[in-house]
């Protein structure tokens, strides 16, 4: 998501599920929606059959999505940027881009510093010592007025468009084929389909998921996809976009509400130690416009943050104490998933609380996670089911007597025993009703959290201790303080006008003087004086495009397609009147909830209101590993980097201590590429508790290509063993025609596929203890530190 924010200003699925039906081309890559999002995928098939759209898949495996696609291209795990870079080159060399769109809505015309360059796999500014980039040279040239220099002809050799052309010129079909292992012809056939939408009357969408994000270059894969879609003029338009298909029911909502390292609800930033005052934090977090004609909506950052602090600390948040700015912890570095485990691994973490989550099985490198868990002082697992994570001390190979970790397990309610809202991948927050009561003995998550809060608060009142002012001052004005209702919380999230005491109806009303409160500005308008907008059930669809504005609530401001200003040209005319996102009537915008004010004229500002450029970024300095993407090999790769031998892998990824030793090294015998994935019959690990699903997909299995299986003497339905440098798994072999051998850099490479859904604590089927993440490496993306689950090396034998 980091890369989408870096490109467009927001990190979320740009369009929504039903909108996919409006597409002319649907590219599914790094995703398998037929299996992981079947009901959303219906709209892709609707496009295929009703619009005559082409549905294509690019994947290391021929999936159930490929089974209904018009064309499938098999690639090597980890070669996505090569493919997408090749598509960008295909567009630019054949002039297939949507020229008017690129000129109007991207930073193609922006001129970049003369110091910027790229050589031998490294962008300018690389600092060997810190494995990081000094981004000074990745900046725009400024004119005398302080704004960025632009060249509307796109001919300046330092303009983004020309730099883009030069950068991706190396991604020739031959190079693509060499890296990805496919044939040039098949790649070009695919390219012709995907690159056919660079016109006003055609539009294409991309559906991607963790198949893109779970790489050491994951964010840059998404960036490449975003650049591709911008060149084709597909962002902001109905039937277009770059659509992140998110996994769990409320992964979008939990991210919006920031159970995430580094952000606060509404994508506000967690303050850093350097920002010693609220003013410094606001200054660093509030972007300044780079061009005169930009809305630069993030300019309202202070209103969002101050309103949030008011929601949290109420009357204790005053101008005098910087609205409680110092009540917030300021982390000393990265605090994401892998870093948490690294802290535990090195014995620095004492306590670990997990709620609604099976972190051990989530991986990566379960053997390492088991060691890390053993070094915790205490752990608490909150879930309706007993989890493998809670029973880690019973895992195969563990000796409970040697593990001092105290573990508490708390049974809590599940979704249907509570009301509340889930925000889906397409940003629709839908209210759900409570259907049944929990059984006796089971408490709600809200109860557990409140109880923990009150008991800690009371302990501090009794005994004193470390700085407890924020705890004592945290607002908790709920009717039943020991178990707030979710309606109360929904209202708090929406926010109030303190003068009138009324619920706010739009984040436009937020103030930075403490006059308003709002737990999360993105959800302002979701629960107003008019009622619970998330519970709306109006089915009308006047646009015919599936926007359904009267159904539930879509952040922001009930907008259904993000960046919809870009669905129209500079004058506000829709690129394609039959699929108009919004249209300017001369007085106002009609259609979707416009990205602008309803009456803001089209020439008032750039289409991308969330960027300080006012346009989308083909070139973005916000990424850690380059303003453009570059193909780097996975940290475990069966081959060298064909583009630059000396820089094989992403140069700015973070290497945690002791991780290099856990990777396949020169001389180790791990010849096969491996990728892990999910199947439609299961959702991660929780469905092990559902008998009908265990019946439908009972056992852990290993998917092996026919040729490799024959070589190893493994029969279909027989048993196979797969091991990496980190661990091994054993299971039933599914020998398939759906994975073919690839020719990568002149050598044959086989791909092995392994599903993730099985655990050791009495999980599904008969194959216990075979967990895909026993194999995966403990390494993450340079931007998000999302682990590289999707490409690593293994060996295989008959078991």
């Amino acid at each position, binding site marked *: 998501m980091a890369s989408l924010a870096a490109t467009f200003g927001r990190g979320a699925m740009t369009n929504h599920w039903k909108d996919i039906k409006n597409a002319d081309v649907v590219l599914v890559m790094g995703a398998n929606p037929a299996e992981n999002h079947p009901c959303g995928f219906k709209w892709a098939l609707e496009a295929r059959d009703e619009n005559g759209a082409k549905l294509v898949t690019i994947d290391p495996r021929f999936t159930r999505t490929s089974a209904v696609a018009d064309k499938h291209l098999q690639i090597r795990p980890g070669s996505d940027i090569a493919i997408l870079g090749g598509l960008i080159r295909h567009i630019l060399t054949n002039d297939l881009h949507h020229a008017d769109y690129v000129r109007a809505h991207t930073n193609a015309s922006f001129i970049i510093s003369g110091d910027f360059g790229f050589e031998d796999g490294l962008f300018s500014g690389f600092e060997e010592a810190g494995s990081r980039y000094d981004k000074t040279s990745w900046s725009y040239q400024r004119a005398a007025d302080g704004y960025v220099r632009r060249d509307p002809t796109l001919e300046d050799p330092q303009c983004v468009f020309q730099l883009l052309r030069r950068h991706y010129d190396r991604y020739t079909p031959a190079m693509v084929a060499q890296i990805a292992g496919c044939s040039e012809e098949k790649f070009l056939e695919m390219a012709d389909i995907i690159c056919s939408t660079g016109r006003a009357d055609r539009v294409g969408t991309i559906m991607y998921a963790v198949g893109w994000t779970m790489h050491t270059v994951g964010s840059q894969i998404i960036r490449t996809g975003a650049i591709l879609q911008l060149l084709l003029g597909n962002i902001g338009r109905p039937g277009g976009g770059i659509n992140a298909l998110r996994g769990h*029911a409320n992964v979008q909502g939990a991210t919006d509400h920031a159970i995430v390292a580094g952000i606060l609800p509404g994508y506000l930033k967690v303050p850093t130690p350097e920002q010693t005052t609220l003013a410094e934090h606001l200054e660093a977090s509030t972007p300044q416009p780079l061009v005169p004609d930009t809305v630069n909506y993030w300019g309202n950052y202070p209103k969002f943050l101050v309103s949030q602090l008011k929601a949290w600390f109420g009357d204790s948040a005053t101008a005098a104490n910087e609205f409680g700015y110092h009540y917030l912890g300021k982390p000393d570095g990265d605090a994401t998933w892998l870093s948490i485990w690294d802290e535990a691994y090195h014995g620095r973490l004492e306590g670990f609380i997990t709620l609604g989550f099976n972190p051990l099985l989530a991986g990566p490198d379960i053997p390492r996670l088991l060691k890390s868990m053993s070094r915790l002082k205490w752990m608490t697992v909150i879930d309706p*089911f007993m989890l493998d994570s809670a029973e880690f001390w019973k895992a195969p190979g563990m000796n409970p007597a040697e593990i001092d970790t105290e573990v508490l397990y708390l049974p809590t309610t599940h979704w249907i025993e509570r009301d509340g809202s889930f925000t889906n991948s397409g940003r629709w927050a839908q209210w759900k009703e409570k259907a049944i009561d929990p059984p006796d003995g089971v408490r709600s998550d809200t109860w557990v959290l409140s109880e923990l809060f009150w008991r800690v608060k009371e302990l501090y009142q009794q005994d004193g201790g470390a700085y407890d002012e924020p705890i004592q001052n945290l607002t908790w004005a709920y009717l039943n303080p020991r178990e707030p209702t979710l309606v109360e919380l929904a209202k708090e999230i929406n926010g109030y006008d303190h003068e009138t005491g009324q619920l706010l109806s739009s984040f436009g009303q937020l103030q930075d003087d403490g006059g308003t409160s709002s737990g999360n500005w993105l959800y302002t308008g979701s629960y107003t004086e008019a009622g619970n907008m998330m519970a709306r059930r109006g089915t009308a669809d006047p646009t015919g495009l599936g926007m359904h504005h009267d159904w539930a609530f879509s952040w922001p401001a009930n907008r259904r397609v993000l960046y919809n200003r870009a669905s129209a040209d500079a004058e506000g005319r829709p690129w394609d009147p039959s699929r108009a996102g919004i249209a300017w009537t001369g007085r106002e915008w009609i259609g979707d909830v416009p990205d602008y004010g309803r009456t803001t004229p089209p020439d008032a500002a750039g289409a991308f209101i969330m960027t300080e450029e006012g346009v989308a970024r083909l070139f973005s300095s916000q990424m850690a590993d380059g303003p453009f993407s570059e193909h780097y090999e996975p940290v475990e790769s069966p081959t060298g980097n064909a583009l630059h031998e000396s820089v094989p892998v992403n140069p700015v990824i973070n290497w945690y201590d002791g991780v290099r030793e856990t990777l396949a090294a020169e001389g180790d015998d791990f010849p096969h590429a491996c990728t892990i994935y999910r199947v439609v019959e299961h959702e991660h690990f929780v469905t092990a508790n559902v008998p009908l699903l265990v019946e439908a997909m009972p056992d852990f299995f290993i998917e092996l290509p026919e040729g490799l299986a024959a070589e190893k003497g493994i029969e279909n339905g027989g048993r196979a063993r797969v091991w990496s440098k980190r661990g091994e798994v054993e299971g039933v072999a599914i020998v398939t025609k759906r994975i073919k051998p690839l020719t990568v850099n002149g050598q044959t490479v086989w791909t092995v596929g392994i599903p993730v859904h099985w655990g050791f604590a009495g999980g599904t089927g008969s194959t216990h203890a075979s967990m895909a993440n026993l194999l995966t490496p403990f390494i993450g993306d340079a931007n998000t530190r999302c682990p590289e689950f999707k490409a690593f090396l293994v060996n295989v034998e008959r078991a």
Partner: protein
Amino acid sequence: MPISRRTFLKASVAGVGISALGFDLKPAYAAVRQLKIRNAREYKTVCPYCAVGCGTIAYVHGSGGLNTTNTIIHVEGDPDNPINGGTLCPKGASQMGLAISPRLRKSPMFREGGASEWREVDWDFAMDWLARKFKESRDATFTEQDSQGRTVNRTNGIAWVGSATVANEDAYLITKTMRAMGLTYIDHQARI
């Protein structure tokens, strides 16, 4: 071979002369069972699995009266929901199996250091233990000012993870509470 009524009758009557007239249809109708959701109450909810956000309807038996307990008998897609239009994948179609899974737990469990088994504990013990541990670790690892003298007010000794499966309102409350407690190691399934 076309069979007419006449030939059939010949076939059946000629040999034995037993007429099948007046055949009783009741058993055939009796075989069609009554619609099991006929008298159920409906609750509109959302599928707990992926992020498509399919609308579902939970069918529940029970009067809803004081001291009564509802029993869930069926869940199927909500046809009005524009996203799924009533459809559900195998996970969604079997979600009642999750709601009433025989493996749902009903009691807090505690494992002492070095123990090889769980022991059942009550909620009061559990929450008291958790609050004390929480405070202990917070007190032990809280940093008010870092080495450069800057106010940081953080605790690095406790991590909170999850969840992408709770409602927005609970997610918000988790963030609000844990940030106020000074935690910085906070993450959930978004990354994995």
